[in-house]
């Protein structure tokens, strides 16, 4: 039996039907066509599917679609305002913090969550906060530099 | 004359460590080698890359070289 779910994604109200066993990640990617959120493992180990769910950073592969009822969800597609990139996105590009880019949507969302929670992280705090986001290409060096730079820029702008 | 040097694996087929050749391009080289050293068949040589004076040529079919060239056959390098 499919359930009818009403939810909010990136500010838009969205409705969908979903099986009880479907994850939020599957709903986003396969049913809603929102493929910006990536799947690297499906078991909560890689962070490629990071989304913000009612203000909290979660792995969309560990949330059921039905749990989205009444929730407010932010995905990578909602980070930039129209064509204006978010500072975090700009800094990722400036610092060449992506190579293949498959981890990038998850990292952008996680970084946003980090900086909302802690606008002045130390490098160690950033590294520990982002430890749930695997990147196999970069060795994290440029990602951390981009995050620290984004934090500094956002503090100045605030 | 150009000179072909064989590594230990090819030496078994060639029966020698090096040989002088009159050839100045890959196709002539294959012909000359397989004639001079019948154990060294086209089947052995064709899958290999040719090294001309230290430069690895993965697809040597059209390669030519000087009369003073130093030539080696090596296994093609795989991609990673």
């Amino acid at each position: 039996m499919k359930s009818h779910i009403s939810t909010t994604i990136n500010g838009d109200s969205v409705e969908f039907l979903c099986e009880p066993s479907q994850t939020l990640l599957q709903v986003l990617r396969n049913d809603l066509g929102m493929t910006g959120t990536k799947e690297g493992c499906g078991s909560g180990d890689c962070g490629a599917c990071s989304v913000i769910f009612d203000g909290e950073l979660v792995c969309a592969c560990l949330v059921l679609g039905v749990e989205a009822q009444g929730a407010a969800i932010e995905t990578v597609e909602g980070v930039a305002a129209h064509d204006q990139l978010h500072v975090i996105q700009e800094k990722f590009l400036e610092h060449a913090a992506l190579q293949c880019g498959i981890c990038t949507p998850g990292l952008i969302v996680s970084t946003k969550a980090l900086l909302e929670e802690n606008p002045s992280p130390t490098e160690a705090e950033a590294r520990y906060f982002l430890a749930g986001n695997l990147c196999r290409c970069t060795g994290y060096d440029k990602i951390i530099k981009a995050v620290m730079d984004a934090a500094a820029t956002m503090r100045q702008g605030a | 004359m150009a000179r072909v040097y064989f590594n230990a694996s090819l030496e078994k087929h060639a029966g020698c460590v090096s040989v002088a050749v009159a050839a100045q391009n890959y196709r002539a080289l294959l012909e000359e080698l397989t004639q001079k050293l019948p154990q060294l068949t086209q089947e052995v040589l064709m899958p290999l890359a040719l090294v001309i004076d230290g430069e690895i040529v993965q697809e040597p079919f059209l390669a030519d070289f000087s009369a003073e060239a130093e030539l080696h056959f090596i296994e093609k390098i795989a991609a990673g």
Partner: protein
Amino acid sequence: MSEAREFKHIGQRTIRPDGFDKVTGKANYGADLSLPGMIWGAILRSPHAHANIKKLDVSRAEASPDVLAIATFEDFPSVNAAAQRDGTHREGMMDTACNILANQKVLYHGHAVAAIAARSQAAAIAALDLIDVEYEVLTPVLNIDDAISATAPILHETMMTQGLAEPATEASNVSARMELKKGDIEAGFAAADVIVERAYDTPTVHQGYIEPHATTVVFNDNGPSMIWCPTQGHFDVRARVAQLLNLELGQIKVVASEIGGGFGGKTTVYLEPVALILSKKSGRPVKMEMSRGDVFRASGPASASQSRIKVGAKMDGTITAMQATLHYEAGAFQGSPMGPGCMTVFTPYDVENLYVEGFDVVVNKPKVAAYRAPGAPQSEFAAEMAVNELAKKIGMDPIEFRLKNAAKEGTQTIYGPKLKVVGLEACLEAAKSSPHYTAPIPENVGRGLAAGFWFNIGGQSSVIINLNPDGTGTIIEGSPDIGGSRASMQMMAAEILGVAPSSLNPIVADTEHVAYNQTTGGSRTTFATGMAVVEAAEDIVEQLKARAAAMWNVTAEQVDFKDGVAQNLSGEDQLTLAEICASAEKTGGQISGRANINARGAGPSFAVHICDIKVDKETGKTDVVRYTAIQDAGKAIHPSYVEGQFQGGAVQGIGWALNEEYVYSKDGIMENAGFLDYRIPLASDLPEIEAIIVEVPNSFHPFGVRGVGETGIIPPLAAVGTAVAEAIGQPISSLPCSPPKILKLLMAAR
């Protein structure tokens, strides 16, 4: 190559053209394409590591209304033994087919047995239960020692060892032996004052790309079938699928999606031919995805290895002889990178007497695939560990010891040719004066250093550059962009055409829109495809001159083109590139340049890494506290992405050295097929990775480029291994240096 050239764009840190899409989630990767009417495929995999398939019965599945198509090995129409060796790969087509869908025998845990397509992914997975398989379970062969023992179960009844002194007469798990030598090894050791001889081993590891294999395909009887997939080489996917399914190349179009990492692991096919069979049978588009567990269990990891190394030197530090015996696991089918392992093992050294023997060994594990500098990390790890130990015995600094014996221009390699100009000495000097090496070693910290060598390759690339009437343009290339290469292409073309890089849009075209390109791998893309871009741009420059000449009514020889502007040498007139394009209509139609090349002269890249490690003596846990990667790039086109290659390679090597390994039960079941238990490095595991770019130009490339993608994974294994050995005061002979192993060494020493 002109001396000390001034560049306008090359060497800058521009924003990559595909960046916007990749930070906003718009870029489409392997699993991101869905089509109307699409159904899903799923694969039934072997629960055993080694078994005969006594019975494979799909009748219950066939009868189910949920099942729209089924595929088994029988569906490969004409895989015949004659195609066993396709010339370019050691791996024959028969092996490829049997790896994709098992033929009467399963050879590893997770080996694909059959596939089903159904209306949803869940339905396809559920329907796998309807396939009945009866196995006769055989004893698995799980490591090199077992595989080469006289009593070992034989994986392939027809496989005999190639390359023995006397032709083999019996089937064996050793597929090939290779021997390389130089000088007189006995005499070399006789001349040595000190000799180190040790055995080393490394585990099976995975490339660990974050994006699992996935594909969406549409079979089409009346035109080309379409395959969408993340691959390092879509032309190679096309060739393999065509061979497996007996199709012409023109009957298949492969579209390379964006690719979420590959590192060599996405240079072959697993799902694509199966999906196409399912699509043909069902008449529907078919999508297939591997789970992370499938990726670990059934895609190609890198070889486990065993190495025995013997190195001798005089007390003054001259190495007199080096000898290696190397065994590589190929997995279920022959074809480990044993060859390049043998060729690279001692190449950082200019030594008179060398002897190397290598063996390719099959075991009941997944068939290995390339992984960054395939074969080199394993063998060079062993060699570098032994070299460090020898330097210590003689009482020499490891950099000085290497400088005394370093390979340089003219060094005779063991695989044949003499080296051209290379940057090893420059890297060693840069290491010596680096902030890291000149800093004292902190208390309780071990420091290790190691060098690495990789050949790099050139090969075939095809590029078209089209200019628009307003002077903007498109670069059509065929090398999947796995780490920012579009940016480099843009910069190289812009440099030649004298325009802003952002005015040229680089596109990775499908197999129908650009001529053949070799796979992105072997560190070849910036070098070879870059060379094609330069040639295509130069082709355009010639046309621009001719067009300007036509406007001025002079000959092309009277026109100079510089910094994007044509100059009439017999007058004052000037025309910008955009102006020439605007009048192209009048001077003979639109302008495009083209290059189809087979690039020669790839320049080897050497690297030197320095690693500081702290070990917790209570738990055996290791912490990398400082790390520096130094490498010769020849010329860095985009320094940020060059540093990124060094850093990424270094961290993969650190993972290999410290934590990563496949863990098998005694029955051959992989027990850690997920990122939780197969632990790749996290952001919190690492310090900054300092990257130092050395530039010793490659004279064969117009800008001096050497490939940089691969060498960086080689030195970390021994740099880390040596640092751990220094920290615990015990020799290290086995990777990974995981906490339990280190703790055991510490306990034994107490």
